């Protein structure tokens, strides 16, 4: 059985790389926002860079380079 036109349209939409890529880019921006928010919260509560790095599963250097110097 061939798919209904509405299904075809939806399928075309979801296979459009632009839709997927923009979604991923927006997700990355949201991720950055959330990371910065939670790192700030952790620092405010006295967490060390090492503790934050452990929870984020990245190196201490990486998290420090990215977030140090921010309030």
């Amino acid at each position, binding site marked *: 059985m061939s798919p209904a036109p509405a299904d075809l349209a939806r399928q075309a939409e979801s296979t459009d790389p632009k839709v997927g890529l923009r979604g991923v880019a927006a997700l990355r921006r949201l991720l950055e926002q959330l990371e910065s928010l939670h790192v700030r919260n952790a620092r405010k509560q006295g967490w060390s860079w090492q503790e934050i790095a452990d929870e984020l599963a990245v190196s201490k250097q990486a998290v420090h380079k990215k977030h140090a110097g*921010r309030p």
Partner: protein
Amino acid sequence: MIERLTPPARRIVALADREAKTLESPVVGDEHLALAFVVELPFLLTPGLGHEGFYLPAAMPKPDEARALLRRDAHDALATLGISLDEVERRVEETFGPEAWTHRSDGQRLNFSRDARHALTLALRRSLELRRSRVSDSDVLAGVVQTGGRGRRLLAEIGIDVDDLERRIESDNLFAPGPGFR
């Protein structure tokens, strides 16, 4: 890099920083540089206020429209993944309070996004190719357009003929009036 910018170009970068903070972005993106130009357009019309030569779209774009477009972009893009940005924001505010997203003091500069850095690099390259000692605001605009990221898309969405703009950039003719411009 910043020290190589002319004063109007610095103003664009400073404005982009402010817009990024207003839009709760953790970085200054090329879209914020584009937005800064939209905000600056009325002032660029006034002689003596750092006018380095600007072409203008037939209808003056509105900054609020551009800001709304950027917000809607993010909402729509995340919705395609099944993520509700409203819901994420609601939960964050529930936990951390309404001020949670506004995180930097005004005195503190945000970092540039990869695309914004790319745009500024292209701006610098353009100024060097044109044998200018400094990077002008029109070089920054050229960099944003040539980067081809969200900034370029934003300019197109608010009614700027980006293809025409690109042709002008290639022929270093950003200043002359053309079709669709006054």
